[in-house]
C-alpha cells in the first residue's frame, strides 16, 4: 500500500492489524514506537510503512518497555502516539501504564492477546482482560475496549484515541490474535462523519501560563504540551493541583488518587458501551466480548431458531470501566447467564458481581488457545438447560 493519505472513504479488504493502524492514522496518530512480538508484529510493520507516508515518525525500539515510554514522551510533546504488543509485552508495559495514569497522559496501547502464562502459545486468547484493569501497580483505572471485527479495529482505535484525549488517560485496545489476523471488509466513511476529539488545552480556555494548574481547573485538567511556554512539570508522585509534591499530607494523597479514580469510574455512563440483541424478555443470556461474540451470536441465533430457547445476547464493547449500572439497567431477571471466554473465566467475575441478584446462575464457558465454535457454545448451553 503506497498511500500518502489517511485512508480515503471507500471499501477495503484488510487484515485487522492493518485496519487498527489505519484507524490510528485517521485519529491523528503520528508517532509509533514498537517492538516485534507474535501475533502483534503486523500492526508495527504496517506502521513502519504508513506512518512516514503521512508525515509521522516510526521507530522500532529496543524492547516493549521503551516502546510504551516513547508514548509518554511523544504525548507530552503534543503528538498522539500508539504501540501494539502481545501478552508478554503487555506485562512489561504495566509500569509505563501506571505512570500514564498518575501523570494523566493520553496514549493508546493495543494488546493482541495470546495464551499464557509465560510464553504460552502464539494463538488467540482473552487471558489479559483482568490485567487490563488490575495489571498496573496502584489504584487508578484504565479504559479498555474489545473490538470484534476488522471494522471495529478501525473504529475502536479512533474511539480509543478520542477517549484517551478526552479523559487524559491511557486506553487499552484488548484485541486477540483472531481479530488481528483475520481479513474482512472495512468500510471507511466520509471524513466528516469521523469524529476526532482533540486534547483540551489551557490556551483554548484562555488560561495563561501564570494561572495554569497542571492538574486543576476541572476533573479532567486541560493539558499544555511541552514547548508552549507553560513550564509543565510532569510527575508520577501524588501531587497537588499546582504540581507541588513537597507539601505532602494524607488529605492531598487521598484527594489526588480519588480524583484519578473518579475521573474514569465516575463517568462509566459516558465511556462504556454495550451491544444487545434479543434482550427484552429473554429467559437466559449470553454475555461475551471480542471475537468470541462472533461465534456466540451464531450459537444464540441457532438456539432461538432451531431449539426454541429464549436466550438473549449482550456484548461488552468496553471491558473497563465495567458498565455495571448499564447491565443492571438492561437486565431485570434472567435464569442463567453464560459467559464464553477464551480464558478460564475472567470477566465472569465482574459480571457475577453486577448481576448476582438478577439471575439464578452464572456459567463460564472457557476455551484456551482457540475460538469457541458455535456448536461448542451451544453444547455447553444445553448441558445447563435441558
Amino acid at each position: 500500500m503506497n498511500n500518502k493519505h489517511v485512508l480515503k472513504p471507500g471499501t477495503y479488504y484488510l487484515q485487522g492489524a492493518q485496519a487498527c493502524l489505519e484507524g490510528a492514522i485517521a485519529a491523528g496518530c503520528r508517532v509509533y514506537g514498537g517492538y516485534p512480538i507474535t501475533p502483534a508484529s503486523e500492526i508495527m510493520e504496517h506502521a513502519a510503512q504508513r506512518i512516514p507516508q503521512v508525515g509521522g515518525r516510526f521507530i522500532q525500539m529496543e524492547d516493549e518497555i521503551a516502546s510504551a515510554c516513547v508514548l509518554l514522551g511523544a504525548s507530552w510533546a503534543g503528538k498522539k502516539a500508539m504501540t501494539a504488543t502481545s501478552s508478554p509485552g503487555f506485562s512489561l508495559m504495566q509500569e509505563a501504564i501506571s505512570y500514564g495514569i498518575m501523570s494523566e497522559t493520553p496514549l493508546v496501547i493495543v494488546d493482541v492477546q495470546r495464551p499464557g502464562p509465560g510464553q504460552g502459545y502464539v494463538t488467540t486468547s482473552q487471558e489479559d482482560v483482568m490485567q487490563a484493569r488490575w495489571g498496573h501497580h496502584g489504584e487508578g483505572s484504565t479504559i479498555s475496549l474489545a473490538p470484534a471485527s476488522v471494522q471495529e479495529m478501525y473504529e475502536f482505535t479512533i474511539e480509543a484515541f478520542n477517549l484517551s484525549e478526552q479523559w487524559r488517560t491511557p486506553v487499552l485496545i484488548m484485541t486477540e490474535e483472531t481479530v488481528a489476523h483475520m481479513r474482512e471488509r472495512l468500510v471507511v466513511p466520509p471524513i466528516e462523519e469521523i469524529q476526532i476529539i482533540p486534547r483540551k488545552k489551557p490556551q483554548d480556555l484562555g488560561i495563561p501560563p501564570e494561572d495554569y494548574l497542571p492538574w486543576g481547573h476541572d476533573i479532567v485538567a486541560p493539558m499544555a504540551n511541552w514547548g508552549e511556554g507553560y513550564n509543565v512539570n510532569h510527575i508520577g508522585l501524588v501531587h497537588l493541583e499546582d504540581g507541588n509534591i513537597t507539601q505532602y499530607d494524607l488529605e492531598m494523597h487521598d484527594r489526588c488518587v480519588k480524583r484519578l479514580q473518579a475521573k474514569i469510574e465516575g463517568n462509566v455512563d459516558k465511556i462504556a458501551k454495550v451491544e444487545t440483541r434479543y434482550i427484552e424478555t429473554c429467559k437466559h443470556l449470553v454475555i461475551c466480548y471480542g471475537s468470541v461474540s462472533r461465534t456466540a451470536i451464531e450459537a444464540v441465533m441457532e438456539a432461538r431458531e432451531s431449539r426454541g430457547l429464549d436466550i438473549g445476547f449482550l456484548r461488552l464493547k468496553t471491558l473497563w470501566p465495567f458498565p455495571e449500572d448499564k447491565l443492571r439497567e438492561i437486565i431485570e431477571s434472567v435464569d442463567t447467564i453464560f459467559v464464553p471466554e477464551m480464558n478460564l473465566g475472567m470477566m465472569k467475575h465482574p459480571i457475577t458481581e453486577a448481576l448476582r441478584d438478577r439471575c439464578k446462575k452464572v456459567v463460564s464457558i472457557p476455551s484456551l488457545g482457540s475460538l469457541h465454535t458455535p456448536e461448542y457454545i451451544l453444547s455447553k448451553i444445553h448441558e445447563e438447560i435441558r
Partner: protein
Amino acid sequence: MKKHPMLKYLKETGPQGDRLPLIMCPGCGSGQVLNAILHAVDRLIEEDGIRKENFVFITGVGCSARLTSHYLNFDSGWTIHGRTLAIATGALLANPDLRIIVITGDGDTGAIGGNHFIHACRRNLDLTIVCLNNGLYGMTGGQVAPTTIPGVATTTTPYGNTEEEFDLCRLAEASGATFTARWTTAHPHQTMRTVMKGVRKKGAAFIEVLSQCPVHKKASPTDMLKALKKNTKRIKSGETAPGDKIPIGEFCNIDKPEWIQSYQRVIDQFAETD
C-alpha cells in the same frame, strides 16, 4: 537582598506552597550540576537565541532526578527509573525542535536504564545527557551501583564490592554517541561550557559529572570536592591519564548522521508535491 541569578529559572513557590529549598542533602553535588546546567542554558538563550520554551528537562528516578520534580521553571518530566532516554526519544520524535536535556544518575543510566542508554547513543539522537555519577544509589540509602569501584563497602556490599565498574563515557562512545565528556562538581565552569557544547552538538552528547554524596560517604562536601579535584586529571582526546587518576575532559567529538535527520529522508519521499 540580591537573589542568585539562576533563581529566575526555578519555581521558588507556587499557588499551593513553597517549593524551595531543594530537597537535596547539604553539600550534595546534584544542586551544583543543576547550577552549571542552568548557567549553560542561560548563555545558550542569550548567545544562540534558543527560545526558553524549547528547553525540556527529563529525569528518571533518584537524587539526580529530583532536580526536575517541581523546581524547574521549564517544561520537564520526572519520569520512570531508567526509562528517561526512551521517553526522551518519544518527545524528540514528536517535536524535534525541543532541546532536550536528560539529567540522569549512574544507576538510572548504567543499571536499569542500560539498554535504553546504549540504544539512544547508537541512534545518535539529538539529546544532551548529563549523568550525575556519585558511585552509588543515593536516594534509596547508599547501595552499590555499576559505577562503584571494587572493594568499596556499601549497604549491599557490606564486605566490599566484588565487581568491576563501568566507564560510562567509554560505554557511550562504544555505543555510538558522538560527543562524550567527563567533569566533576569541582569543575563548574568546564561543566557549563561542555553542556553548552553538548546542546549545540547535533547528536547524542553524553556528559558524565562525578558528583559527591556526603551523606552516604560520611565525608564533608568540601573534603569530597577537594578529593574530586585531586583524583582527576584533565586529558585530551587520545591521551591516557596516569593509573591512579580518573581522566576528565572532552573525549570524543565526531560527526555522524543524527536520527531525526536520517529519518527525515524517509518522510520526504512521501511529501506532497502537488
